[in-house]
């Protein structure tokens, strides 16, 4: 049984002007000890997906399909059970490290909070645990008495990681953990995450819009476009879906002569989730679109080497 299993998950926000289908029929699974990366443009529904795992979305959001955390349906949990699951079973590292921490509480208190809430450690022991956690992420123990603004961005993100580890959850969801960070600091944080995941045997669901970040950290990748997963596969293979390809090409390899003085990109605009194109949602921007693409919606299909992709061309190549 997978640690996390998403089964035909659809999430629809309700706003004044109608419904926003942010996630549409996503099925994914994360095995124990596995690191799955989700990549996609802004607005493709990545964060929505992450938030749904612990039922953190606004009240009136409609969720269809199933989210199974360790075999248990998150949507069906009672409040008490849900609160017990939150953080203890799965924790989240949010995008903006500077905002994920309460600015007027000392860092130590914030790290200790889940320990106390879940009664994992009594207050007197919690302090020692906080110190240990801080040390694990490479921060001196006295930092527990600091306030978030006294730390740099990278240090804050380390605190977030320490906090996520506090209850020793089996799954950590990291939603763009390095986006706001500088190149070198980003490398530091990613290295840290990788080491910790490996040493604790924790599963990781990492979200980013930067392929290069994920390629290095994750075992498997899922590419999202307009609320859909359009391709899944091992992180070291080559992409099949034209969108994934375009995404990969946008991050050139330094030293690769083919991209020298020849930036590549994708024309057109992202689709408006409230007015999705018919057929394959990618077809208006697709450089290799066929006529049928505007009418036929393609499901994920096998594309060789533990890979699936949702593109007509993939099938044709196979056959």
């Amino acid at each position, binding site marked *: 049984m997978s640690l996390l299993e998403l089964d035909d998950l659809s999430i629809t926000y309700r706003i004044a002007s109608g419904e926003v289908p942010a996630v549409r029929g996503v099925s994914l699974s994360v095995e124990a000890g596995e690191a799955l990366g989700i990549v996609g*443009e*802004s607005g493709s529904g990545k964060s929505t997906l992450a938030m749904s795992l612990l039922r953190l979305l606004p009240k009136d959001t409609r969720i269809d399909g199933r989210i199974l955390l360790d075999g248990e349906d998150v949507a069906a949990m009672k409040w008490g059970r849900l609160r017990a699951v939150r953080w203890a079973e799965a924790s989240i590292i949010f995008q903006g490290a500077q905002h994920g921490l309460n600015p007027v509480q000392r860092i130590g208190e914030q790290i200790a909070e889940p320990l106390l809430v879940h009664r994992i450690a009594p207050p007197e022991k919690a302090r020692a645990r906080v110190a240990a956690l801080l040390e694990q992420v490479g921060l001196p123990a006295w930092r527990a008495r600091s306030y978030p603004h006294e730390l*740099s961005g*990278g*240090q804050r993100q380390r605190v977030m990681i320490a906090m996520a580890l506090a209850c020793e959850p089996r799954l950590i969801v990291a939603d763009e953990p390095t986006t706001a960070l*500088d*190149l*070198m*600091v*980003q*490398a*530091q944080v990613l*290295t840290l995450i990788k080491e910790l995941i490996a040493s604790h045997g924790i599963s990781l669901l990492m979200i980013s*819009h*930067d*392929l*290069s*970040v994920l*390629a*290095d950290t994750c075992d498997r990748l899922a590419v999202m476009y307009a609320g859909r997963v359009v391709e899944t596969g091992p992180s070291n293979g080559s992409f099949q879906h034209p*969108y994934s390809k*375009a*995404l990969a*090409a*946008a*991050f*050139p*390899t*330094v*030293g*690769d002569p083919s*991209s*020298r*003085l*020849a*930036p*590549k*990109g*994708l*024309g057109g*605009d*992202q689709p408006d989730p409230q007015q999705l194109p018919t057929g394959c949602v990618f077809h208006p*921007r697709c450089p290799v679109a066929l006529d049928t693409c505007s009418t036929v919606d393609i499901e994920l299909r096998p594309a060789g080497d533990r890979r699936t992709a949702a593109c007509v061309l993939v099938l044709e190549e196979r056959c």
Partner: protein
Amino acid sequence: MLEAKDLAVEFSSRGRRARAVDGVNLSVGPGEIVALVGESGCGKTTLARTLLGLVRPTSGTVSYDGSPLTYRSKALKAYRRQVQLVLQDPMGSLNPRQTVYEAVAEGPRIHGLADEEQVVASALARAGLRPPERFFLRYPHELSGGQRQRVVIAGALALDPKVLIADEPVASLDASVRGEILALLLRLRDELGLSALVVTHDLGLAWNIADRVAVMYLGRIVESGPTEEVLKAPQHPYTQALLSVLPESPARIVLSGEPPDPTRIPTGCRFHPRCQVVAAGNPIASKCRSDLLPVLPATADPQSACHLTPKLLG
């Protein structure tokens, strides 16, 4: 064409003096695209703003076409017809209450150009928004990110500048759109002979479009030269480290700590506290700690400011 000489900019922040730019020589030739790369807070934006005359340098000069910039408002205004700015965040660079037409026409209006509508239409067309009339009355929020950035570029082009200074022009854009804008910059260079200084922290971007790269660390340029040479055979340990954390690189050198702050610049080589070569116990490390390095001149040849460089080269 555009040249900075011994430029230094100081800010006083919380009672201390921050030397955001600390002795920079840099030139951008006609039709040349120069990329300025470096970590966050190393002074890239400050340098760019100083080049535009938005910030007055503490010392040193900015000169355009050989004549140094004066800071009288008239001279500045004239200068700004020649040198234009494109900022990182296209949404923020457009006044949400102005239509595309008004946004692009702002420059011509300030400078009192004749035939405004014609100027605006051609600028939009050159920025790749065709047919321009279709966009005249749109508001920024009705455009996609890439289109917005094109409008900003069109606003700059409307004044027929010779040099474009772009501060992280694609950093806030989606990966898929980024290529388009970079392609536009290249095309403008080819078609109009526009020079550009592109400020970025993304080495891939430099590789994509720049003729020359300058690497900046803590207010100084530590290495510069033609793109191919700098990015393929970096001389300075800092550049090497930057390149090593790119995903494809075989061995990573992750520098620890944050970029030091410009209020406390280390003595000797300013990079030495983080330098992997010093840390590895290189014999000349003591020299790195104490001896100052010369400021690199504004030449096009590959050069690097490091005590080790001659040895490494040699």
